[in-house]
């Protein structure tokens, strides 16, 4: 049986009269595959068309902006030097806010959620930063290299008690999560496999961890894992899992959910993507390109299948407002991560953050409302002054609430405010002259946090 044809099962978006390449599509692409578009990015990508835009997202050219990376790294060094997690969070936020590789940083976030490791237990920011850099290096490479790198990552190994897993007394933590979460998933192994995998992983440690057990701690006896018997050690287990047919399907499904949310994807397409991953040696770039360039990403603008996750939501607001490095510092955004529901470097469990509909939990909705208000009222900007929305939205003075909302909505999410939405904002923002700056700000905050702005 031949493999299903990817071109047939994953039709690409091609602009035409009914589905033109317009501002709305540019904004959607950036909301789903990045962190929202700044006004400059919106103009640039509208001009260059979908093919060039998608190509640049998937494989960005070498950035000329070394200053951005330098600043991010200096924040990270300061974080490590002072054991200050907020600085490490700010370092990463800086890349998302001001960098040129939004899809890359979305993938780093994806891997952070896949190999979810928490600084709460791994009390070493150098290791957490190192893990983040490893995600960045392998974000769109081959999954095999990422997995092998993670099996040597001191943060991950410490998180899952690998240094304590010895021949005399095996500790099953790493083995279990390796099978259940990092590769093949529940249903494809049994308890015996976990026990035997734990034995295979005994004595395994990162070279960076000087507390690591010595080779004598390794149980080099015969193990039977997933039906095969041998004197397996960690690299052998990795190879077995990388070759397992359940892995490409699981990877493909998760990537689909990341970029297309709840959209129903036909089984044939899911199978085709899995087959493509398997045949390409689990090539992540190619799989991501298939998803991002697809019809389902861009064609039907009336569809809302993705609930914007907390970090992309947080970062997209200053970007939509066109706030640059001179206007705000990522250090001021870091404290909001927990309130919007994605405290970077501190996922709640090794399962990662629950996204999708869980982002609508009560205190997270309250967090988004509070965050939008804080940005608009200026408490996050360097000047600590309320935003001049007239200037921000490119007006020439005398901007009224309705026009401001129209401009902001088109920038932030590509669509105009709906009738029901406008009614809600008017009722909630209260009275005042329609050009009153305070009223404009209240209305803007409500729009940014409105139920109509949470999905794309």
């Amino acid at each position: 049986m031949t493999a299903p044809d990817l071109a047939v099962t994953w039709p690409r978006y091609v602009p035409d009269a009914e589905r033109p390449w317009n501002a709305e599509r540019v904004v959607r692409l950036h909301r789903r595959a990045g962190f929202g578009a700044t006004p400059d990015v919106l103009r640039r990508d509208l001009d260059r068309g979908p093919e060039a835009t998608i190509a640049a997202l998937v494989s960005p050219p070498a950035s000329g902006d070394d200053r951005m990376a330098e600043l991010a790294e200096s924040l990270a060094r300061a974080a490590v030097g002072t054991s200050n997690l907020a600085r490490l969070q700010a370092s990463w936020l800086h890349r998302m806010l001001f960098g040129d590789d939004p899809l890359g940083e979305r993938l780093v976030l994806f891997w952070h959620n896949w190999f979810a490791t928490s600084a709460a237990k791994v009390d070493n920011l150098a290791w957490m930063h190192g893990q983040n850099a490893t995600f960045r290096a392998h974000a769109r490479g081959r999954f095999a290299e990422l997995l092998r790198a993670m099996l040597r990552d001191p943060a991950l190994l410490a998180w899952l008690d690998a240094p304590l897993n010895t021949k005399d007394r095996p500790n099953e933590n790493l083995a279990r999560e390796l099978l259940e979460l990092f590769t093949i998933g529940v249903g494809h192994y049994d308890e015996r496999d976990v026990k035997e995998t734990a034995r295979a992983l005994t004595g395994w440690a990162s070279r960076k961890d000087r507390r690591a057990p010595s080779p004598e701690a390794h149980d080099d006896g015969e193990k039977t894992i997933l039906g095969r018997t041998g004197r397996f050690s960690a690299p052998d287990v990795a190879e077995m899992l990388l070759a397992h047919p359940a892995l490409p399907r699981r990877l493909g499904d998760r990537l689909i959910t990341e970029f297309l949310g709840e959209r129903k994807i036909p089984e044939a397409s899911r199978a085709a993507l899995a087959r493509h991953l398997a045949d390409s040696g689990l090539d992540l770039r190619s799989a991501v390109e298939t998803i991002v360039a697809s019809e389902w990403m861009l064609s039907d603008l009336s569809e809302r299948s993705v609930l914007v996750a907390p970090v992309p939501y947080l970062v997209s607001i200053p970007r939509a407002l066109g706030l640059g490095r001179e206007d705000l510092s990522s250090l001021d955004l870091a404290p909001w991560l927990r309130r919007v529901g994605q405290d970077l470097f501190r996922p709640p469990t090794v399962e990662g953050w629950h996204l999708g509909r869980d982002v609508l939990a009560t205190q997270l909705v309250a967090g988004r409302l509070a965050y939008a208000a804080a940005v608009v009222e200026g408490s996050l900007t360097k000047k600590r002054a309320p935003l001049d929305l007239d200037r921000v939205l490119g007006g020439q003075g005398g901007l009224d609430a309705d026009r401001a909302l129209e401009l902001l909505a088109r920038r932030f999410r590509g669509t105009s405010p709906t009738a029901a939405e406008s009614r809600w904002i008017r009722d909630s923002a209260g009275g005042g002259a329609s050009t009153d700056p305070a009223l404009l700000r209240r209305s803007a905050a409500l729009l940014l946090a409105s139920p109509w702005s949470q999905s794309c």
Partner: protein
Amino acid sequence: MLTRRAFLAGGLAASFAPSLAARVRVRRDDRKRFPRSPGDTALVVVHLDGGNDGLNTVVPYDHPVYRRSRPTLALPEKGLLRLCPGLGLHPALAPLLPAFDAGQFAIVQGIGLATPDRSHFQSLAKWCAGTEELSSRSTGWLARAAADAALPGDRTLTYIGSRACPSALTGLRAQPTTISGLEDLALAVSATVPITADDDPELVQLAANATGVTLRRSEQIDAARRSPILVPGPRLAADLDAVARLLCVDAGPRIFWLEHAGQTAGDRSYDTHSNQIFEHAALLSELATALAAFRKALLDAGRFDRIVVLVFSEFGRRVAENGSRGTDHGTAGVAFVLGGRIQGGLKGAPPDLDHLDDGDPKVTTDFRRLYAAILGRHLGLRPDAVLGEPVAPLGI
């Protein structure tokens, strides 16, 4: 009130047990005279996150298998709180002795899943679903309880914690409230409840519902926020304080879910794979102190007779310790129930250490029997409807 010195003397099993039985008899008489109206009881579920070691909580201190399997972890008989011959309670749980003495504290042994799987997620998912047959359509048992009571989910179900809402509260149309603390719902922007158009997409409707829930709750929370602290302390105590203050402001049927995860928020602290002794003692001490203070606060407010607290963990731990002075995921564990009108005492059969199942004691109490008792006897609901089939309730 039994003193520690008295317990260390060891001779109190005889004097302890009859006084307990006498107290329990008294409480049964009380119940006849003051019939409870079902449906106005609050249930507080406390999840001990990570798999609490039942064998070091309710300790079979002189069983040879216990002593042999735990060279560094076996607790000495001296210092344990004697429950009955051969079984002692971890000393850190001493703050709960007054409740036990009053017949308001039940200890359920050998409780767990019929199909143990040792996975935190899977096991917790089963406890949350109230069934061991999970599917992508599984709903939470507490969401079903709220539905059975025909109660609005957003008012009835509240999760206080910093993670994703537990699946016990979700499914069906319930939109539970989730907060980290009372202050989280202080709104920076005033707003009315959003009303969507009929043709708005489903995710927009959901977001609008969620926003409405948030706005409504924030009004309620404000009154509780302004009230004085009832249960001082961080973490679990702070969460129980939030519950206590909410209950004092707004009585009525409520279901709360809390987690006890210990010092480092987000850590599965009860998942004691290494260096268990001190960590476990610290956790149990924090748990007992907070629960005792919660009980006292509600007794003082005259509301404890309308509260049931269920304390559980997703699994117990293995009989044999591992090489890191800890224990790995096991099966049968221990659950606690606290409440003004429960039938307290030691329930269930102690784990049979002479007939282990692959190194674990067999589960002798189906966890759903605990749910059936709480649902039927205390919440005034229909256990069969919520659990999907008839389940014999435990005697609590």
